[in-house]
């Protein structure tokens, strides 16, 4: 592959993310990886549901009292919006508009960072209350499930930051188009997992 090949929006392929042989492999491989990740989170969800509100005899924390929906709602909005902005970025990727793509990805990363900061605040707040990791089976399951998701967000942020800076000077080519595209797949996946966390952990924790 020639990285120096110059494209115009007219010569840029319709599906740049799968335009080369290696790109097709990465594309399929990443989808399969997300399949495995789905099972990984499913296991965490199942364990959380089994251990929800379970602890030693004098457990003082329950989902009803602990969770604060307004904060979680703001986090949800940030992450859902970041998924939308990554769609805009992919729209510009397909139209060979590098500057706008970078801009939208920057906004995506910014929103993701906002989510992560709020999550750290949320955890910090719980720890201040005494709901630490080793407090109970419930606390372990909660922090492991939500924390694994947060860890995925952090990985995604590092990933997209590296991509944005690495390619800032050289623009789009068929080598990095797939990298951008798989990032967006990953980001959507994280978003979907969060939708389930919001529902299963927080909403069902309040009313279920």
């Amino acid at each position, binding site marked *: 592959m020639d*990285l120096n090949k110059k494209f115009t929006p007219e010569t840029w392929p319709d599906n740049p993310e799968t335009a080369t042989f290696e790109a097709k492999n990465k594309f399929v491989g990443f989808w399969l990886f997300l*399949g495995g990740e789905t*099972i990984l989170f499913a*296991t965490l969800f199942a*364990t959380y549901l089994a251990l929800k509100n379970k602890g*030693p005899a004098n457990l003082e924390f329950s989902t009803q009292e602990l969770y604060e929906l307004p904060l979680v709602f703001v986090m949800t909005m940030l992450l859902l919006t970041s998924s939308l902005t990554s769609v805009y970025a992919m729209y510009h990727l397909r139209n060979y508009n590098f500057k706008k793509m970078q801009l939208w990805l920057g906004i995506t990363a910014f929103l993701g960072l906002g989510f992560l900061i709020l999550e750290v605040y949320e955890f910090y707040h719980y720890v201040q209350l005494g709901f630490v990791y080793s407090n*109970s*089976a419930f606390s*372990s399951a909660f922090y492991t499930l939500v924390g694994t998701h947060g860890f995925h967000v952090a990985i995604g942020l590092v990933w997209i930051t590296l991509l944005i800076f690495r390619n800032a000077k050289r623009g789009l080519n068929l080598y990095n188009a797939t990298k951008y595209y798989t990032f967006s797949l990953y980001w959507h996946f994280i978003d979907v997992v969060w939708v389930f966390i919001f529902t299963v952990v927080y909403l069902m924790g309040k009313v279920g």
Partner: protein
Amino acid sequence: MSSVAQKKGFGSWLWDWLTTVDHKKIGILYLLGGGFFFVLGGIEAMIIRIQLAVPNSDLISAGLFNQIITMHGTTMIFLAAMPILFGFMNAIMPLQIGARDVAFPFLNSLGLWMFIFGGLFLNISWFMGQAPDAGWTSYASLAITSEGHGVDFYAIGLQIAGGGSLIAGINFLVTIINMRAPGMTYMRMPLFTWTTFIASAMILFAFPPLTIGLFFLTFDRMFGANFFDHAMGGNTIIWEHIFWIFGHPEVYILILPAFGIFSEIFSIFSRKRLFGYTSMVFATVLIGFLGFMVWAHHMFTVGLGPTANAIFAVATMAIAVPTGVKIFNWLLTMWGGSIKVTTPMLYAIGFIPSFVMGGVTGVMQGAAPLDYQLHDTYFIVAHFHYVIVGGTVLGILAATHLYWPKMFGTMLNETLGKVTFWFFFIGFHMTFLIQHWLGFWGMPRRVFTYMDGQGWNSANLISSVGAVFMAIGVIVLLYNIIMTSVKNVPVANDPWGDGRTLEWAIQSPPLYYNFTQTPLVRGLDSVWIEKQEGNESGITPAVPVQDIHMPHGSIIPIFMTLGMFIAGFGAMFREETSWGLPLLVFGLAWTFVCMAIRSLKDDLGYYVPKEEILEDMKRERGRK
């Protein structure tokens, strides 16, 4: 290329192997690593059998016995059987579909080194005072109270090796989906490719639960979590579910590739098309699917209730149907065939009754009420050794003889091969057949010794003598390998003379880019078809000779894995030492830096020029 290679010194030879991304070399490395651990696990098995040969034996202590049985099981499953199968998948599957390499050569290397470092991590426990001692299933109630660092080695070592397996699984899947040669439709794929495909799909969905289970165990033991601690609201049964949701598919991950290997062997040495190819494929897919539906049959006595037990009992017995389909297809492949009893064929013929016996005892245990009687007795030990040794290990030994010439360019001695077979086969049945009765007579599994006068003495002695036979068989095989390598008599493309699939139409060992021209596939058993139609080369090229794109080697996989290895020690000694936490952070940071380097540095590969390929083709013609 090859003339340059001969002038290299030891350093660059070693560098070449450490950085290789060539699927054939990685296959050989998997075979070496897996072979090493197979011998190690075998030595552990011998110690077990020597200890149990006579009653009231005090050769080894109860604690050491627990460590040895734990490490025997863990080593054989994760570090011997799977890697050796990965070795054959790597070396052969891309050749069977007419590909030049796997889809992700870099990840292939990463998976290999994760297996090797994970295996080393696990076995370093022997030198650090305590090996894991909670059984290969490491049930949580035992595992979280096990003292010392034994179980920590288990949790982290398997985490690293398991990650490698997941990577390999995804890699094989994409290879088969995207990289088949023109004309190689799914229903023209050789059976070994099919079983690799299904086993890889099972790896993709079975290993993430193991990852999570091991993390829970790690967090419970090292970071104060309470997943399995009943006093803190935890539930130890969660581990059993998670482990078996992984563990049951795992046994099919082990057996399906062996089924594939035997399918190839029956077809080659009966000189007949595989009987019922379509039903064979369908049965493979069905076994893969049902394999995920039966995990709770390992937990009948836990007390899940009669409804759950009944459902899982029926699902378990249902697996016997597609397996039976396969058995009959193999028998009917031989029926009317022109059979040549070579060493691989001998293994294949021996496999059928052995595996059927293992399958039948499996259905017996599938009946939940009977399982209450058989649970935790030697009957179980006999059963799973009949399926794993009688299926997977016989398959591995058969494949070793079958594919040795393709992988190494020289043929294992057939006479010694048959000697190995008979020692191993007789020893295997001698060791494990009698254990069914030991189970009926009430001998529990996992006991380090037993009292005199319970009627178990002679049966145990017979079993131990059988183990010696198996050991002799393996020693003969090792001798065979050494002698063959020393003599190193080169062989032709198709040393067995009846190869049917693409790997037998290229050189042994293949050129580093495999095919000079990508082949055109016109049907099942394409080389056989070409030869029947008078095309001696066995291949019709799909494209003219052209430049070939190849990936660069890389040292990054080893360094990336090294980071995880270091982080593992950090996590383990985090609480008792001051350097534990910094080491954990350092190891993880190291791995992430390696990942960043891999991501930031463009790696576009290189082209093998057309001239070099034409040169190789000319030399190949000259050789004939």
